[in-house]
């Protein structure tokens, strides 16, 4: 039926025969889209006397908000910390490939690197909307170099730094510019970090605590100064101790400023965190859990050796180690694998598993009015999923940007 032309000429699509994730639960509702946004069909009916131009039968699939990956170091042979000549096409390749994993927005992550690397790479990362060309880029996640040498994980020790006299200026000089930066991971016990955390927070940059030996009160102080995220909980930090829970203690800390929530990234690939630990974290603070892939260049590729910034890593199945060691370094699990594994390991509801990869990262970055939900007027970035949470199709701004073909590839 024709729609009322007085408000908008754009075609209206109605996705029917589906269950949508809205209001924290899966509801038997249709999803309406116009001009790249989720449309309120009741308003359309009564105010505009409008109706759908096209109806698409989703055959009973689940429609969920697109996944948001806030920690991904590369994939498909591309390493975001390596300044190659074709860096731009590398990031384009990854953003296009991860559509099949259900990721519609991401933060390309750079591991600890020398200043020259940041100066070369950051200007080549443009914050941009997603589309048929690939997932949207929300800004870079700079993991390091202001971290703890003791908890370097797979980061190169020689590039790890403490702050010079004028901490924030030092950070600015190291990165070159903060224009395209969305998240910075640092170790709060480093002298000067309080000033830095406040300055970054003032500029709307999310500060994350990670690769650190901070104790709980140092972590709490960092949160009071503005930190809101924990980088891959449990990994590269002091283990939970009952008399000093360290950064892990933030999950149940009573010193979090009113109205704020601490989020924490979890790599739920079955390797970085024992399922029991995943469950403990989830049960302690379910609303703060953010699924991340922490994927490295080898994700999507055959087993073998690949680079990760200044290092070499070795992939064997889902395990990735610094070549020649047993030190874990990033992962090769895809985001949809992480969502499925999280759901299985915690026996949580489908809604909870999906929100951990969509709503929570959107809340972390303060963009939940546009992303991470299927609420009216949000960006129409969504996925068609099977009951087992396998991605069947990916949509960005209401356009289909990826579909699983008949052979399931």
């Amino acid at each position, binding site marked *: 039926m024709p729609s009322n032309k007085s408000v908008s000429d754009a075609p209206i699509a109605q996705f029917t025969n589906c269950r949508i994730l809205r209001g924290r639960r899966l509801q038997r509702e249709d999803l309406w889209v116009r001009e790249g946004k989720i449309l309120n*069909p*009741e308003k*359309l*009916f*009564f105010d505009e*006397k*409008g*109706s759908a131009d096209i109806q698409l039968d989703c055959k009973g699939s689940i429609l969920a908000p697109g996944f948001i990956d806030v920690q991904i170091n590369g994939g498909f042979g591309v390493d975001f910390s390596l300044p190659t000549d074709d860096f731009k096409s590398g990031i384009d390749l990854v953003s296009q490939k991860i559509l099949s994993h259900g990721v519609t927005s991401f933060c390309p992550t750079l591991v600890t690197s020398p200043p020259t690397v940041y100066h070369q790479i950051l200007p080549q990362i443009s914050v941009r909307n997603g589309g048929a060309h690939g997932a949207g880029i929300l800004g870079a996640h700079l993991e390091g170099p202001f971290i703890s040498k003791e908890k370097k994980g797979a980061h190169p020790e020689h590039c790890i730094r403490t702050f010079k006299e004028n901490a924030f200026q030092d950070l600015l000089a190291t990165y070159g510019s903060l224009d395209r930066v969305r998240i910075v991971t640092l170790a709060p016990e480093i002298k000067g970090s309080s000033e830095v955390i406040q300055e970054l927070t003032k500029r709307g940059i999310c500060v994350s605590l990670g690769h650190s030996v901070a104790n709980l009160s140092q972590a709490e102080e960092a949160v009071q100064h503005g930190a809101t995220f924990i980088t891959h909980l449990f990994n590269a930090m002091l283990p939970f101790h009952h008399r000093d829970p360290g950064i892990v203690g933030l999950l149940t800390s009573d010193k979090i400023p009113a109205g704020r929530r601490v989020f924490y990234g979890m790599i739920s690939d079955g390797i970085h965190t024992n399922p029991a630990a995943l469950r403990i974290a989830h049960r302690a603070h379910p609303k703060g859990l953010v699924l991340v892939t922490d994927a490295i260049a080898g994700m999507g590729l055959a087993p073998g050796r690949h680079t990760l910034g200044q290092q070499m890593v070795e992939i064997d199945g889902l395990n990735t180690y610094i070549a020649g060691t047993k030190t874990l370094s990033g992962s090769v699990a895809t985001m949809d694998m992480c969502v499925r594994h999280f759901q299985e390991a915690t026996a949580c509801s489908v809604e909870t598993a999906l929100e951990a990869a969509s709503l929570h990262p959107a809340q972390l970055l303060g963009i939940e009015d546009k992303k991470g939900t299927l609420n009216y007027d949000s960006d129409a970035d969504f996925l068609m999923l099977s009951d087992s949470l396998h991605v069947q199709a990916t949509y960005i701004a209401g356009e289909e940007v990826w579909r699983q073909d008949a052979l399931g590839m």
Partner: protein
Amino acid sequence: MRLVILEDYDQASEWAAKYICNRIIQFKPSQGRYFTLGLPTGNTPLGCYRKLIEYHKNGDLSFKYVKTFNMDEYVGLPRNHPESYHSYMWNNFFKHIDIDPNNAHILDGNAPDLQAECDAFEKKIEEAGGIDLFVGGIGPDGHIAFNEPGSSLSSRTRLKTLAMDTILANAKYFDGDLSKVPTMALTVGVGTVMDAREVMILITGAHKAFALYKAIEEGVNHMWTVSAFQQHPRTIFVCDEDATLELRVKTVKYFKG
């Protein structure tokens, strides 16, 4: 009148839905020749709406050439409030069928000039050629639409203050908070519904039994406004067994036989 007594709520709902469906199909509506339907809200017609949606989804019934006119709407309640009758009609009926939004008429309880809104509604009904079938319910106090006890039996669409009985009955939809319940509504008049070519009143449940008794076994009385339909040439009362509990055995036997 016809009094159709079904065993339970589900059967009564299905009977009513089938009747409406058949009326529409027999009419053979088409471009420029619409079937006009008057519609109610509330708990009673939910089962009927569900069945109509089922017939539509089965491909047996289309609302493409049907015009609808709802009976009433609260005054001062935002249109997108979950308890507004606009929300009720959207969620329980319109969003599941193929009706043209231009043909679905509901009074606007937020219109700047409420009487003008009512007058315009009467005019729209007139322009649509009158109502072919007006479906309604009955309140526990015997009211049809919001024509509360004491409403003129020849009334037209207008603003009405709700009776305390009605406000109390509605409180459950507003978190039990009386202060949140609307106190006024726009409603079609008794006269407006009497003008329809055919009227079907749905009455189910023991709590409506006394009202049904007053409406059909006692005299025409403005305290029980549904009683006006004793003077309508084509009215059907569709009810379940429980709703007949206050009727004389003789009445029930006559209509069941």
